[in-house]
């Protein structure tokens, strides 16, 4: 057996939890390092890994999961390029993947196949599937415990039902240590203290048969912008990432052989943390949902990448106000007065990310050595620092795909069964909302509006009781693509897991301009990919500058510049503007054109504002002629934004509250929460749509072509689609439970026979047959179900989720300067 259960854990108990400013930590830890050589962790564990007086090699195996996001049950996924390259399936196939019972099987198999091993999780086990909406994280925490997770860093989505829920679930169900070294907390028992300090530790020490491993947890800030406002509802006071990481490295180094940082910072912050510190061996990261195969190798001790060899012991660029020691990146007034460098030798550090949604388990094998020659970062034994203990000399990495070939861990299955039954009884997740012939992507090739984004924003905009001038939701709130085939309620939860509601408000034209300028800046910093999806509006976002006046205006602070993006007000040297300096705005992105609604009268020559090109519209502005719905018959002129107008606007309550940095919305005082959930609005929007092949010209109640045989359906509507005659009782199943093919038989009464998409009938029949797989009598279940007949009848009614419903890209968000 592996050594997992022989590992000794050590950590600070709650009453001794570290609550101090990052600077104090660094200085004190350095002092501590000088006085405590070679301590071991654990009262009874072996004290060393090598024979006395000798150096040696030793292997450490890290099993890694991240961002499980409540995907504790298996689910269907359309396999795209990256996943196919990683072995999850064949490109474009829809495959059943994920599930923590399978994850647990692989984790424990690999645990058994390793010597010194830890299973580490990089956080965000909560949120992303309906089970979280109903149980608030309880089954996720219990499953993580049962699979034997050794240590986990808390992710930002653990707070999605509030800090108190995170505390409650983890206190009750997590039997593994939960880390966050870079969070400090208010005084215990005060009104602002939700009790996070009772579940979070800064680090853990493990004794793996004499190999002493320190694991430091670095939690997320980039998606928890509110923590920089004090106090905040989470009761978190942020500590500077680099200062904190270095402080704990220095604290632990005398006691451990290996330092692992378990991170939910995100890859770019992982990189900056490594470059700004010295002494970390490996980072197991999350948050980005990516697999880095093999792990990235990056050098530490490169605070200045063009001049490696030092880190800042005290960084002059880190704001530090002795009277307010909470780190605030926006504080440009307090530059640290006592900066000095700490010299070091750059070493290779590994950064590993192992994907998301329970699709992969990463296995990282590290070959470690404390032989000065082999452990030296330069090959020169003199450059080996014994304080660093064992150094990585080589590594291998395997991301194990979690697909339907992986057996379940029966213990996890048993654990989850009651939750699954409860969900089946209380919410029919397999209820069909529609049929999607081609699916709908949440991303757009050109970075602008996406089919899924347009569908969602349209559903908000047109919702009865909302019906505003325009609507907007955030791109990153849409968590996955709609896969081709039957659209279930469960899939809608997966696409839209957050219980956000629709909030209405009135925005002045200036506020609209500011909002889209902010979106442009945020989009520019994320690969020029629009961070907003809209309806009732059209906008052109420029990622490579701003042709509008004021882009280079004089300024005193960032918020005086277009978009208000941090760092946009700079002095003559390109640095952040300090009080008293002559500064100018350096705006790298803005909204160039904004249109809301259509013009109603374009003058005597064009009273209906019809156009085929921008020049046909009175303002002749770029993108003003909207031909997206013209089908070649001419478009309509859009109405340019008027700064003095007032516009009715709908968005999510998350964005209205300033989420994702939308301070411009947070400050608005006209907000009205409709309490209509965004997800419900989308489901209702889909359900109200007609079935595939619908046309009023057919004269039938369903709007579908009447038929007796399949041959009658050859003229049915739907480019590129085959239609068949759906007739109850006159269809045979010829496929398998994993791929059903329905064949029409005989001739049907044209009063009941209707032409439906062939792929709808086959796919819905396959969907139903899958339900029979868990039946004790599969054959009888299939016979009773008569899936093909049922599917044919359903496809007469199921809404068609395709371009006719707005699931297409129509360039309403145009990105230029990519």
């Amino acid at each position: 057996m592996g050594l997992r259960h022989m590992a000794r854990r050590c950590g600070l108990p709650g009453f001794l939890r570290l609550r101090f400013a990052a600077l104090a930590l660094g200085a004190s830890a350095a002092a501590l390092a000088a006085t405590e050589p070679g301590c071991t962790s654990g009262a009874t564990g072996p004290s060393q890994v090598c024979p006395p007086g000798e150096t040696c090699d030793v292997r450490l195996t890290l099993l890694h999961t991240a961002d499980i996001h409540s995907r504790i049950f298996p689910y269907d996924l359309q396999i795209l390029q990256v996943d196919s390259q990683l072995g999850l399936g064949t490109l474009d196939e829809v495959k059943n993947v994920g599930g923590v019972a399978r994850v647990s099987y692989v984790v424990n198999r690999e645990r058994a196949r390793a010597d010194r091993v830890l299973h580490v999780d990089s956080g965000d086990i909560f949120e992303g599937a309906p089970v979280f909406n109903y149980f608030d994280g309880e089954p996720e925490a219990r499953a993580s415990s049962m699979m034997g997770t050794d240590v986990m860093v808390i992710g930002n989505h653990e707070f999605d039902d509030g800090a108190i829920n995170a505390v409650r679930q983890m206190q009750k169900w997590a039997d593994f240590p939960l880390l966050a070294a870079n969070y400090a907390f208010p005084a215990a028992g005060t009104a602002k203290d939700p009790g996070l300090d009772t579940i979070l530790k800064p680090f853990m020490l493990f004794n793996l048969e004499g190999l002493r491993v320190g694991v430091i947890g670095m939690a997320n800030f980039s998606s928890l912008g509110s923590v920089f406002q004090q106090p905040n509802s989470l009761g978190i006071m942020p500590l500077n990432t680099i200062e904190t990481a270095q402080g704990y490295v220095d604290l632990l180094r005398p006691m451990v052989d290996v330092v692992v940082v378990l991170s939910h910072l995100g890859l770019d912050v992982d990189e900056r943390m490594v470059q700004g510190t010295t002494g970390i061996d490996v980072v197991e990261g999350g948050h980005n949902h990516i697999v880095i195969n093999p792990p990235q190798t990056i050098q530490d001790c490169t605070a200045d990448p063009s001049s490696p060899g030092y880190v800042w012991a005290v960084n002059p660029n880190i704001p530090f106000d002795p009277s307010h020691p909470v780190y605030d990146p926006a504080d440009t007034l307090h530059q640290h007065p006592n900066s000095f460098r700490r010299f070091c030798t750059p070493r290779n550090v590994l950064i590993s990310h192992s994907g998301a949604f329970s699709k992969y388990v990463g296995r990282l094998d590290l070959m470690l050595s404390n032989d000065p020659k082999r452990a030296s970062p330069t090959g020169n034994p003199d450059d080996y620092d014994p304080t660093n203990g064992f150094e990585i000399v080589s590594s291998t990495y395997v991301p194990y795909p979690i697909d339907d070939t992986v057996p379940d861990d029966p213990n996890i299955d048993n654990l989850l069964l009651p939750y699954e039954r409860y969900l089946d009884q209380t919410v029919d997740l397999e209820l069909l909302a529609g049929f999607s012939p081609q699916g709908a992507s949440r991303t757009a090739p050109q970075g602008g509006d996406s089919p899924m984004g347009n569908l969602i924003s349209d559903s908000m905009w047109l919702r009865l009781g909302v019906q505003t001038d325009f609507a907007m939701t955030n791109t990153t709130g849409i968590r996955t693509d709609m896969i081709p085939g039957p659209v279930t309620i469960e899939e809608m939860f997966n696409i839209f897991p957050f219980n956000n509601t629709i909030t209405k408000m009135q925005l002045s034209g200036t506020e609209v301009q500011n909002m889209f300028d902010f979106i442009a800046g945020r989009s520019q910093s994320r690969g020029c990919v629009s961070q907003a999806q809209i309806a009732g509006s059209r906008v052109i976002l420029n990622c490579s500058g701003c042709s509008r006046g004021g882009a280079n205006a004089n300024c005193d602070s960032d918020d005086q510049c277009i978009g208000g993006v941090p760092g946009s007000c700079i002095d003559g040297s390109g640095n952040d503007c300090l009080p008293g300096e002559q500064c100018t705005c350096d705006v790298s992105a803005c909204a160039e054109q904004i249109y809301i609604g259509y013009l109603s009268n374009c003058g005597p020559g064009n009273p209906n504002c019809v156009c085929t090109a921008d020049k046909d519209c009175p303002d002749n502005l770029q993108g003003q002629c909207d031909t997206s719905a013209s089908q070649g018959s001419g478009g309509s002129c859009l109405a340019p934004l008027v700064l003095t107008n007032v516009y009715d606007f709908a968005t999510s309550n998350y964005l209205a509250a300033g989420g994702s940095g939308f301070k411009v919305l947070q400050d608005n005082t006209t907000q009205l929460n409709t309490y209509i959930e965004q997800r419900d609005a989308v489901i209702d929007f889909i359900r109200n749509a007609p079935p595939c092949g619908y046309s009023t010209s057919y004269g039938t109640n369903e709007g579908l072509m009447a038929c007796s045989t399949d041959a009658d359906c050859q003229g049915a509507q739907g480019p590129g689609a085959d239609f068949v005659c759906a007739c109850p009782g006159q269809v045979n199943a010829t496929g398998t439970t994993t791929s059903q093919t329905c064949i029409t038989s005989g001739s049907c009464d044209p009063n009941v026979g209707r032409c439906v998409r062939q792929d709808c009938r086959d796919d819905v029949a396959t969907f139903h047959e899958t339900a029979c797989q868990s039946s004790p009598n599969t054959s009888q279940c299939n016979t009773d179900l008569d899936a093909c007949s049922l599917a044919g009848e359903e496809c007469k009614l199921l809404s068609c989720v395709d371009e006719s419903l707005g699931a297409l890209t129509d360039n309403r968000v145009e990105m230029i300067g990519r």
Partner: protein
Amino acid sequence: MNRAGFSLAALAAIAILGPGCTAASPTIGGGKRLVVELTNGNLGTPDQPLPISVVQPTTFTVNITAELPDGSTDTSFNGYVNVIAQPGSVSNLDITNIQLQNGVYQSLQVPVVAAFGETHIWADDLGYTPAPPNRNPPPECANGIDDNHNGLIDYPADPGCYSPTDDTEDLGTYASGSSDTIYFQLPRIQLVRGYDPADNGNGNKTLFPNTQVSIDTGWRGGSTYDFSTIVIGLTSAGFYVQDLQSDENPAPGYGGVYAYNFETPAFMRVCDRVQVLSGTSSDFYGFTELNYPTWQLEYWDPTQRPCLVPEPTVLGVADLNNDNTLWQNEATLVRVESAGTVTVTIASHFGPEDVPIVNGNYVPSDDASNCDYDHDGKINYADAASTPSEANCAAVCTGNGLTNPPTDYDCSEYSQYASENDFFFVVTDSSNNSKARIQGDASAADLFDPVSARGSVIGAFTGLVSYFSGGTQFTIQARCQDDVVPDRNTAPATSNVACVHPRTSSAINANSQ
């Protein structure tokens, strides 16, 4: 929240954590290990690394010894161990699993290929005992019997089964060890791109698929460079670098590569010189990329040295009709230009309306080159039997690379432009009545509208060559407005000034709601 508080906490922590410090005699962990000792072969040095070879192996001799925790030889061990090279691979599959006798294997010859940088030979006891898959009786891990009585049967259920050919259901010791460092050269960009005449690599496919590679950029420390690798272009999701190959005569080409970074790299500008560059090499739809790149730059200072971005390679009709030439120039700066007998024209059949069908034929026209009949933003290449057929229309308007050119040579399929910004140039040479097509992307040139300019002759179009195996293959991507010269009488900007924009600022990246 003060230093006193910290010190107290920390000292208390040490008191709790540190009882082992005072132990009278140290205890040794229970893990066994393997010792891999290199006994023969040139190991290279950091200053004199061994040359890389992708096909021809470099052979090393090793002794492998199983050791007990106290450092003595485990003479009871007669199991198999797995031998690998990292990075690289062992080319002789017969020795990837070798059996130790009495805890020792002497003088194992290990041929290593595709190794680079700091390489180690590993040995692992995986608990694997190889057996022929068709043996009778079958191997323990494929015989349907719970041989080790742990309640689990065969591969993959029993974790002791490494594969179906494993002849024991027992777990290994998972003892492992690695050799001293062997120093190989780092690969230059052309090798990462796949160009290696010695190993028949033609540059179409990376020689290091899904491998973390560090590139030899020519930097030798301080201000010493054997050759230069320069940033030649930035995009919204990464950057292009080119090995100038100034030390090679003739330069082989294949010197450019794209580093995919998800976002514009922070604090970088065209003309920077790369000192360190690493990333995961892979072919994304045929286009070689470095994923998750890390880098170290010598920031370009105009007062210290000139900008070293090379002038673009001017491609003529023959070049555009030769895939090998285009491969050679992948990820480097190229230009098509109207000069002398050569004329570069934007395809004239290029507009948003659907391509009409006339007498069963797809007939694009000036305003009608859209084959996306269902307006879902993509071409359905599987609907050839339907009418209208997006696939058949695309065959007329777009074709597929050089082997299947379009029927309408002057067509630029509109949905491709709407979704990807791509459009076609037609390049003709009146001196020999030859012509070629190449796809362009001017999305980074805000002021240039190719639809409005359809059918017109342009002066020059410069950009970086990308490749996509799933469609029309090669594309020239303009870097900025400087790269597009509509007027035939205007000279393009030289490379030391074209698209040399100010340094990028910091970037944020997150995955919030």
